[in-house]
């Protein structure tokens, strides 16, 4: 009838071997840069040299510099941490309030609201920063005092990012709500007693992503903290170390800073990985 060169099982085995090889190569490519980063963080030789990977001299000097009074690193770290803390609470609250209202209720302005938010989202986010900077400036919440300003900026409009939460809530059967109402609960009680407890995975996902956000935010932080070293967050601060004027001296410090910033986030991520994956695979696309 047909070729008998390879039985089905043998064919599958070769395919699997090739797959394993590819996966191993992929894993290497994705991990290598971080391994290099960590290695260079421990190199206390010439702090500006970007070329060598293997440390010229092993030591913790770079880390010491970060924590010394010469660098603003601690300040930046502290700033970012505070912002992230407030952001994860505030953003989660805002997003879920919006998502719940849009998912569970039907009111006349519902579709127009969603459309308006869709349209507003099409404008580059940065556009709002120009105005907000002036306003916050007049309120004294910029430059050195950038942190409160950034917190406000991060939380205030976060309701627009309701899509993942709403997608998830849409999949919860409304019969739960109805049963609770028959039992005599007000809509508020349904919200915090019945539905929200069931959203634990998505809540954790939202908390996680909103916590991680401020650590990597460059554009907003750079705008609001304009002109001040004290008000920067880690992203803007570390980037300033790498700008051409400074690169002579600061490259290794940057690596060390990167390691310090990355580690807590990675640990947090490791523990909550399950929720993150669930949020991405479940909610991110349904929206």
């Amino acid at each position, binding site marked *: *009838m*047909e070729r*008998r060169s390879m*039985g*089905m*099982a043998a064919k599958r085995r070769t395919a699997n071997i090739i797959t394993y090889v590819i996966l191993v190569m992929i894993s290497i490519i994705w991990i290598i840069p971080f391994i290099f980063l960590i290695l260079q963080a421990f190199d206390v030789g010439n702090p500006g040299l970007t070329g060598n990977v293997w440390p010229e001299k092993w030591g913790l000097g770079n880390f010491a510099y970060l924590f010394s009074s010469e660098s603003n690193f601690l300040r930046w770290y502290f700033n970012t941490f505070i912002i992230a803390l407030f952001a994860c609470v505030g953003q989660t609250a805002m997003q879920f309030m919006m998502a719940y209202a849009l998912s569970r209720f039907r009111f006349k302005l519902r579709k127009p609201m969603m459309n308006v938010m869709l349209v507003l989202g099409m404008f580059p986010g940065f556009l709002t920063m120009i105005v907000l900077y002036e306003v916050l400036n007049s309120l004294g919440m910029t430059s050195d005092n950038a942190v409160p300003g950034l917190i406000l900026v991060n939380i205030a409009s976060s309701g627009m990012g309701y899509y993942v939460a709403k997608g998830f809530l849409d999949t919860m059967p409304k019969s739960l709500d109805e049963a609770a109402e028959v039992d005599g609960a007000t809509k508020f009680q349904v919200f915090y007693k019945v539905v929200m407890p069931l959203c634990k995975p998505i809540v954790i996902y939202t908390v996680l992503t909103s916590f991680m956000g401020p650590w990597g935010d460059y554009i907003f932080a750079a705008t609001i903290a304009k002109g001040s070293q004290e008000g920067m967050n880690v992203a803007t601060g570390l980037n300033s170390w790498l700008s051409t004027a400074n690169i002579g001296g600061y490259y290794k410090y940057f690596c060390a800073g990167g390691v310090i910033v990355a580690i807590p986030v990675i640990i947090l991520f490791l523990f909550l990985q399950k929720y993150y994956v669930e949020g991405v695979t479940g909610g991110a696309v349904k929206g």
Partner: protein
Amino acid sequence: MARVQLENVKKIYSGNVTAVHDFNLDIGDKEFVVFVGPSGCGKSTTLRMIAGLEDISEGTLKIDGEVVNDLQPKDRQISMVFQNYALYPHLTVFENMAFPLRLDKKIRIHPWTEKEIDGLNNQIKKLQEQRDAANEKKKAAIDKKIEFIRASIEKGKEVKGFTNDEIFERVTNAAKVLGITNFLTRKPKAMSGGQRQRVAIGRAMVKDCKVFLMDEPLSNLDAKLRNQMRAEIILLRKRINTTFVYVTHDQTEAMTLGDRIVCMRDGFIMQVGTPTQLFDMPDNLFVAQFIGAPMMNTFLTKLVKDGDKYYVDLFNRKLPVSGVKADGLKAKGIQTRDILLGIRPEHLIVAKDSGEGTIPVTIEVNEMMGSEYHLHVSSEDGTKIIVRIPTINLSDKERENMVPGNVINLAFEPKAMHFFDPDSEINLLAGPEAVNSKGPIILPSEREQV
């Protein structure tokens, strides 16, 4: 049309879980075989091994005499209808049914059209003209070409796969048979379950296949539709006339559709036979109770040999055994012994009065099925029995009598009594290849060694 032979086929999963033990079956050409059994008995697994969707751990599978263990599903020339239809959601019905045809790459011979033959002959003429003007070396080459064209005219046109017109024709024909011509441009989502099932069948029909496999195709339909589709499958079988292997857990489907039934349990074959064989002469208790609804009634009791005659000692009453059954018992030399007595609800008769061979029972529930009563009764010692009684010939007085609380007398139809060994549940009158259905299942082939 093809013969399918399974020889000692086993399916073992990693972790030493055996899903199918030593499966032996010889399916004849154009035969309709049904694999039936409860969930997890291995029927679907066996079907998928035939299809090539599961590897065969041990044993040989032959289609048309050729060993196909290592062949890809697409090379086995099979068609399959899935339980969940497996229709491609983004394609229209037409495209769903055309899908296998468009993938086909076999070379087929078509007759040449007049125009094409003329064209080929013209080519030969031109070549001959060239030949006359050519030198020796070239002459041989041109001769070869002419020969090639001549042979090709003889053979016919070689076409790879199906032409668009052929696809159109096959699909529309199948659609006509299945009554779905109006849906050809719809997508699966816009159709009901029954219609989708027909599309799935249509897709399997359009190919030329040797074996037609169906994996619980009616399980997702409602009861009424199921009855309808059963009849249609019988008609389909007449139309396609190829070898069918059909898997179901519904014994009604098995009984009505199959030429032969393979009753399975826990990976073992309990019995292979025609519907009549399984109904009238079940090899073991499992088959006896699986086939037929409501389930056969069983009683743990004693079979007594009284000289040349036999009777059953049930609830301290004597039920005589006569006819074929008695002869069979005598032929096997069965002595007085404990047995499981089995009798189907429809073979219990309501006697006019209590006398020899009857048992008094109290009615607990009367299920009125319309043309029958299903009486749930209990005997004096509390044993529950189900009786099926046709209502058509009952007098009004008799009907009034059949209410909960009343006592009636049951007689056992002697021709319909079954006797099973209480330990192995094997039918006493069964042949040597019968499999036990109680306890760890030991195949007949293994029994010799024990």
